[in-house]
């Protein structure tokens, strides 16, 4: 196979991995604070539809992006209220969010089907770095939202592991009672990260409808929200590992599109199964790893914090 083809596959892997990455980063933050949010798929769909609608109405994808973050953030706030304040079951609330978001996005997006996006996030050659051999066309001929992740991911890593608020975030998810005792406001912390996590899911959705496949289609996330949640486990709640993982998933996605072009004669339905089967396999391997390394999920993940019940 020639080099140009590999370069195009790797570049496509980054593009395809980016929406999963945004959603996974959001979920890393939420889960680090101790709240599992299974509503990623629903929040992404809401992000995709509002991002697209606002771009059509206002003409700027950046406005669309902000709207997507706002709308998905509001949905995340509902989850936060139910699970943090009312101590509702996190699994069921997240599922409700996905079902509600799927329905609402289909409802709101009905009039958007078939409309072309007036403006999108387009690829542009990063000045200087874009000229690098091999790496240039892979890493630096992308759209703005991809470039943002190059900064966002190391920043988040630094934030989580090397700063005081990051320490508070981790301790909120690991041992909320102890964190509470040293003065961390558990409820406020969880609210903030669940909502920020939701906003990142909104970006993920907007990426799909404004950069990856500029249009609106019902259920256009096609399970990527769930793949992002699986990725969080694979990444062991680490933003850097999430980035690596997202690109691997993106690579599988990109390959399935190109395998037939490469002359592989597998019916397309089997190729479409690949990302989901791959997710299952990766999850099994990752779980074995986390168990053997004893660096499992945040201790208090999934548990409502009851200040008086500790």
């Amino acid at each position, binding site marked *: 196979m020639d080099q140009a083809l590999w370069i195009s596959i790797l570049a496509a892997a980054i593009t395809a991995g980016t929406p999963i990455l945004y959603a996974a980063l959001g979920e890393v933050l939420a889960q680090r604070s101790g709240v599992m949010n299974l509503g990623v798929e629903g929040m992404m769909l809401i992000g995709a539809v509002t991002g697209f609608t606002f771009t059509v109405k206002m003409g700027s994808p950046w406005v669309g992006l902000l709207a997507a973050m706002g709308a998905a953030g509001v949905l995340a706030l509902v989850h936060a209220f139910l699970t943090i304040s009312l101590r509702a079951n996190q699994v*069921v609330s997240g599922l409700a969010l996905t079902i509600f978001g799927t329905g*609402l996005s289909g409802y709101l997006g*009905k009039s958007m089907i078939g409309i072309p996006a007036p403006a999108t996030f387009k690829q542009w050659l990063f000045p200087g770095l874009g000229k690098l051999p091999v790496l240039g066309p892979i890493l630096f001929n992308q759209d703005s939202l991809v470039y943002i992740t190059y900064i966002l991911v190391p920043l988040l890593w630094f934030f989580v592991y090397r700063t005081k608020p990051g320490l508070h975030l981790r301790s909120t998810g690991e041992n909320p009672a102890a964190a509470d005792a040293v*003065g961390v406001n558990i409820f406020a912390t969880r609210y903030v990260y669940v909502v920020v996590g939701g906003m990142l899911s909104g970006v993920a959705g907007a990426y799909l409808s404004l950069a990856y496949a500029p249009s609106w289609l019902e259920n256009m996330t096609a399970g990527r929200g769930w793949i992002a949640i699986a990725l969080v*486990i694979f990444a062991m709640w680490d933003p850097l590992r999430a980035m690596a993982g997202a690109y691997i998933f993106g690579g599988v996605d990109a390959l399935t599109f190109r395998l037939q072009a490469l002359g592989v004669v597998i019916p397309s339905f089997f190729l*479409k199964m690949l990302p989901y089967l791959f997710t299952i396999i990766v999850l099994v391997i990752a*779980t074995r790893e986390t*168990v053997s390394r004893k660096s499992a999920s945040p201790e208090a993940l999934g548990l409502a914090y009851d200040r008086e019940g500790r």
Partner: protein
Amino acid sequence: MRGPGFGIRLERRPRPSPVLAFMVPVMSVVLALVLGAVFLSLTGYSPAKVYSIMFDGAFGSKYGVSETVVKAIPLMLAGLGVSLAFRMLLWNIGAEGQLYMGAFAASWVALSFPGLPKPVLLTAMFLAGFAVGALWGLLPALPRAFLGVNEIITSLMLNYVALYWVDYLVYGPWKDPKGYNFPLTPPFSPSAQLPTLGNTRVHLGLVFGLIGAAVIWLILRRLKWGYEIRVIGESTPAARYAGMNIPRNILLVMMISGGLAGLAGMSEVSGITHRLQHGISPGYGYTAIIIAWLSKLNPVAIVGVSFLFSGLLVGGYSIQSSGLPAATVSMLQGAILFFVLGGDILINYRLRFRSGGAGGQSKGKAAPAAPSAAGPAGGTGE
């Protein structure tokens, strides 16, 4: 310091309120409809008109009612399966895929042995549908039982795999050559079709659902095994301490759960479509999750709630002619679940709203113990 949880304090009730236990699901449906009405009017539809079309579509005619009964069948079967797993805190989100695989297996039997006598063929289809649904449920159960792999994601991923598998068959090797290129298999022989009630589409699957509910009820209430399932669901460590075999229970429960969803698929192809085709389920497996939760995992309640949700679904189809997408219904379903979740807290807790920072426990440590002192024992903290 701000009060925790935005100024809301929860105070445990001495005993759950039975009135609220009944009212919460009812009010949740009402509030979801109100929320839906707000959305409808905001987007330029008349809620009263849309809801009356929905109600009429689902319950207004003999055909509507029979359709509501027909659609309640897969919801009931999948809902029962899902609820049994939820009892053990096993989150089987894969009912949709298990339904598709059950439909696939039953169709394979029907298409391979069309000449068998009706009772034999239907029994074989029933068994195949249950068995393959159960196997599809076993797939996420094995890594969960032995490695602790999150079954939510694996069971969900398998939904997509099952969907594409059925699509592969109906677009490919099983496609009806006389089907004008539609994604469907040739029709089943008459002996592969479930008997129906009179001249309606209501089929024998209804009996599967009712018997299924009775069996699950018996397992949970009368068998030692049902007791084990309930104990494991309430406290896995306690169950382990009591010497219960948790991996074996995970496998068994997920197989029954998947098997029931598989039966839903079998009864759809054998009772309704009489062939395997693309999109045999409009998301029954997901709606089943809401039904199970709304019914408090009670098998008898599941039967009733299935009819309600089926009415919602049938009503949803009837509004499509007025330009609204069928997704409107899943929006309502999601909202119902939200309100149930929010309302559930009222059954066990009293909500106390605090104005401003009345807590004043800025230094933490032992202070939080004070306000709770009146709570658990007396419960008359008003």
